[in-house]
């Protein structure tokens, strides 16, 4: 049992390390509260496949029926995206304006409609852009 736990810890370490440098590079761990995250249905309004920080703007309808305009970044960049199979054409098609996706978000510590996207899921339940 102890051995299994050790193996699990090492595996977790390897997996987590793939995320850590990206966080450090973007300064995401400072701007955003990564200890908090939630899933959110969102409608894409703009996606920029730009270096080194792709941007995603999206709308959310809140409980009062009001539309909120959110600004966000993704924890990856085009050179990493293309190497995991997410080229410009495929990415822009997957996030064209009007597309409804489910986002996993961490909020900006400063508040407002600002967040970091850590996961994007399409209407088929597949992870896109952020996955491999």
């Amino acid at each position, binding site marked *: 049992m102890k051995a299994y736990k050790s193996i699990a810890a090492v595996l977790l370490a390897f997996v987590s390390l793939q995320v850590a440098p990206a966080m450090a590079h973007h300064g995401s761990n400072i701007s955003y509260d990564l200890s908090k995250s939630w899933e959110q249905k969102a409608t894409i309004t703009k996606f920029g496949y730009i270096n080194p920080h792709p*941007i995603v703007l999206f709308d959310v309808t809140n409980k009062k029926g009001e539309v909120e305009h959110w600004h966000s970044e993704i924890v990856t960049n085009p050179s990493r995206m293309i190497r995991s199979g997410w080229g410009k054409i495929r990415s822009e098609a997957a996030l064209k304006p009007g597309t409804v996706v489910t986002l996993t978000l961490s909020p900006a510590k400063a508040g407002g409609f600002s967040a970091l996207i850590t996961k994007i899921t399409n209407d088929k339940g597949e992870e896109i852009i952020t996955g491999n």
Partner: protein
Amino acid sequence: MQGKVSSAVALITAVGLLGIGAGACTQEGKGTQEGAAATGVEAGKFDPKDISGVWTRNPQSFNKDAPPCPECREPPGGYGFGVDVPPFTPEGQKRFDANITGKGFAPDSKEALANPQLHIGRRRGVPPGLANDPQATCNPDGIPRLLLMTPAPYEILVTPERVFQFFEWTWAHREIWTDGRVLPEQLDYVPRWFGYSTGKWEGDTFVVESFGFDDRSWIDIFGYPHSDQMRVTERYKLRDHDTLELQITVNDPVIYTKPWVSEVKVNKRVAKADLAAGGWSGLQEDVCAPLDEVDIFNKLVRDKAAGIKAE
């Protein structure tokens, strides 16, 4: 999440120190096998001066099946020059305080509190929108900062009189003269972000000396300063055909009370096949263009995340 990352980094550092990581790192992966095959190198035999090639500190960014390289990794907080920071001179302290970084740990974060042994440079991060990092407006990173980027690779090209380095991040290059010239005692020309460089072989180690730097660049992401009197020594050594070690020394008496020696940075060779992406093969043009970074990203995302209101 942050806690997990922090403890994971601590754990993996320990694994690396135990030498387990070194064993894992020397295993032949898909990429390294192809790289070796491409140059006709048999296992265990390599030319110690064959440093031409593309190098990265995260081989799995290029080939998911490549063995992980925990020893390529860094202490908590991000990829910097070194943790053993010499005491500053009064001038050095002044410039260090003036450089506000958006990297590392926030001072009040769990990670900062859990790592009090780290130099304050890694525990003083502010949201990038409130920092004054020259990189955030696409100014050149310069040397040594550009050598520390990850996973962005750099390529080394050896020619008879010059060794070139091409960097994917910012699509920059530098030239290192190997024609026997020596650096001047004093430079009477425009300071360079990348300095003026000469190189020579000392046994199996390629030693690069540089001088004549623009003092507006930072030594690394944490905002450690340098003056225009900085001299940089880089020592490159192949451990095996696919592993390049780099140790850097900064000698800058205006800023630091003694020379600052980096940890050994371990780079892995990237096979040509693993560079293929988007119907092309080679380094990506990872330019930082102000039209993208400043006019779009900073305004629409970075500054809003820092609570800065649009004008």
